[in-house]
């Protein structure tokens, strides 16, 4: 009796797969934290994916896309690796994407190399990740994109001579420090102090670190903290210590002004200058459309942020691959299709995948926070076009592979 049931099930499953093959279904495995500390970010990227599918129904041509979601739970890499292994071995996905945390992407690299599956990274920002496997491409960012750009801008546009850097003590923080330093000192400035400010796990009380920075009296205080609640703490401490009145400008990568946290910062954030590849106030038609659709779908208080846009653009990249390869995903051809792929309709402006490094090339926007009609709004004060990941360009440290 049981064997008969098993056989029927197997037959049904077989029919489904066969039918699937006929309809050219492309299976995409999405590995994101849906629970745990990263749940917020996972939700943003997931929404970005859904938004792309909603706003571009014809993007995949006649081909069906089936999304298989897996929870990567915590930033240890081990869960993501198991999820990726099963997506490859059990679910037979064609493409892997997602990956908020760098350890998740790093741990999965050997798997995708061995299995030959293209992996499109939608967040993980450690610079040398793209060197780990020829199957990896990235549509998000590396810490160097914003850090280096901000460093140069601080020296040139803001005419700062001295800077203190505060950073959360883990690889993206150190990357940011190195990137800013390179850009700033390369343009004639001098970094007088670098202050590690606790780990990424909990939001520390920033007061002691900021007090130390204040005592050094720099022109500019560059702060990197992970996106999320850290940024709110940064803003409050900056105001609470009266650093603006002391003439110290607060600058940083856009991680500290993540759009979903922006309104929580209150008036204390006015005047903050950041460099990033996206903010929700960018003025281009694709972004206006995205913001409107986002609010309609997820509520008036919801807003896309850089992670949401990365999810959006990641799906655009995958759609390009699916159409170019006519629904039959061959790993090498997929990578060839991704290298040099240009997308002019991204909400963050024109983007491209660098054929040499498979990393993203995009605009960096210099923005200043202003208050308009009771809300905090990012005002654009400059654009640096087509920024590459300078870590790999300059072959710094671990990027020199």
């Amino acid at each position, binding site marked *: 009796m049981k064997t008969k049931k098993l056989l029927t099930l197997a037959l049904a499953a077989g029919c489904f797969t066969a039918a699937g093959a006929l309809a050219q279904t492309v299976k995409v495995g999405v590995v994101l934290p849906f*629970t*745990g*500390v990263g*749940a*917020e970010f*996972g*939700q943003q990227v997931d929404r970005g994916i859904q938004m792309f599918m909603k706003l571009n129904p014809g993007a995949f041509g006649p081909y069906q896309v089936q999304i298989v979601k897996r929870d990567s739970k915590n930033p240890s890499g081990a869960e993501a690796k198991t999820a990726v292994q099963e997506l490859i071995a059990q679910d037979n996905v064609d493409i892997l994407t997602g990956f908020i945390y760098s350890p998740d992407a790093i741990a999965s690299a050997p798997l995708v190399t061995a299995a030959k599956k293209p992996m499109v990274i939608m967040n993980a920002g450690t610079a040398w990740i793209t060197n780990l496997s020829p199957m990896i491409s990235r549509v998000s960012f590396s810490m160097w994109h914003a850090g280096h750009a901000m460093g140069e801008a601080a020296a040139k546009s803001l005419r700062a001579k001295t800077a203190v850097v505060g950073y959360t*003590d883990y690889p993206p923080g150190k990357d940011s420090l190195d990137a800013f330093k390179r850009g700033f000192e390369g343009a004639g400035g001098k970094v007088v102090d670098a*202050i*590690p*400010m*606790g*780990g990424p*796990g*909990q*939001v*520390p*009380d920033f*007061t*002691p*670190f900021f*007090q*130390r920075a204040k*005592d050094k009296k720099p022109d500019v205080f560059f702060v990197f903290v992970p996106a*999320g*609640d850290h940024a*709110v*703490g940064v803003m*409050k401490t900056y105001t*609470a210590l*009266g650093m603006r009145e002391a003439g110290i400008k607060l600058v940083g990568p856009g991680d500290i002004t993540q759009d*979903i*946290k922006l*309104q*929580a910062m*209150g008036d204390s954030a006015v005047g903050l200058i950041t460099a990033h590849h996206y903010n929700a106030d960018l003025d281009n038609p694709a972004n206006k459309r995205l913001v409107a659709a986002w609010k309609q779908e997820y509520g008036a208080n919801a807003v896309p942020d850089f992670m949401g846009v990365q999810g959006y653009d990641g799906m655009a990249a995958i759609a390009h691959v699916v159409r170019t390869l006519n629904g039959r995903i061959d790993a090498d051809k997929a990578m060839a299709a991704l290298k040099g792929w240009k997308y002019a309709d991204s909400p963050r402006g024109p983007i491209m995948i660098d054929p040499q490094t498979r990393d993203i090339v995009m605009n960096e926007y210099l923005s200043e926070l202003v208050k308009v009609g009771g809300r905090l709004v990012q005002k654009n004060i400059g654009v640096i076009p087509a920024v590459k990941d300078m870590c790999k360009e300059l072959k710094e440290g671990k990027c020199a592979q």
Partner: protein
Amino acid sequence: MDLVSILLGGLAAGMVLFIVSVGLSVTMGLMGFVNLAHGAFAMLGGYVIVYSMRHWGLAFGAALLLGFAAVAALAVVLERTLYARLYRATELDQVLFTIGLVFVLIALVTLAVGPESQRVVLPAWLDGQTDLGFIKYRTYSLALIAAGTLLMLALWLGFERTRIGAKIRAAVDNRRMAESVGVDVGLLFTLTFALGSGLAAVGGGLGAEILGLDPQYPLRYLTYFLIAVAVGGLGRVTGVFFAALLIGVLDFTLKIYFPKGGTMFIYALTLVFLLARPQGIFGKAGA
């Protein structure tokens, strides 16, 4: 950086720790119950406070009271229906139960409200800086210090000078003896649990400005609550008070002078302290 600023900053941080942890110390000391879900009550309180302020326009003070009452009521229900069944169980089973409860509460909050962290909008009189004459300091930190001290005094008076307080202290020191003298220990348990959880709720709301507020709160800060309780001595309000302040000030100071050390200092200091004095600051020796 001048000493007064350091002291004030550390004290403020310590106060938040105290307000949330004092409930845990009393419940663990009195009931001998390992309630790892304590942080979840703080989180729930925080959410009630933030939401009532945002959606019902309650004033900060009124919201705090509501948070206290709501969570205390929930605590009574949970205590009578579930916790009471585990009083005779081993500590390990209590750990299993309360961790399970934390998972359930985190999941429920995430499903109901979403994983985003919640923003606290402080009333205008708590925002900005205050001029104390010799120094200008963040108003909210000063308010926290004042609130924490008042709370400690109120609790101390309550425990030392009232009849109920005496009964609770008796039950903490020797439950059997207290029972045989006619103290209704079951009722005391319920009251203390409600009080402890209500205080955690207030702490969650007050501390949200500094510690943040999102569904992961209960697990993220559990270690700190446990450290404050262990260093202070189980069931000792004054102990937890001084332990929390000590931790706050030391952590703050060391971060200024040795930022590279990060959170190492709290753990190292706790280690050294507990080895030297295992019963905590005011705990009974040989406990």
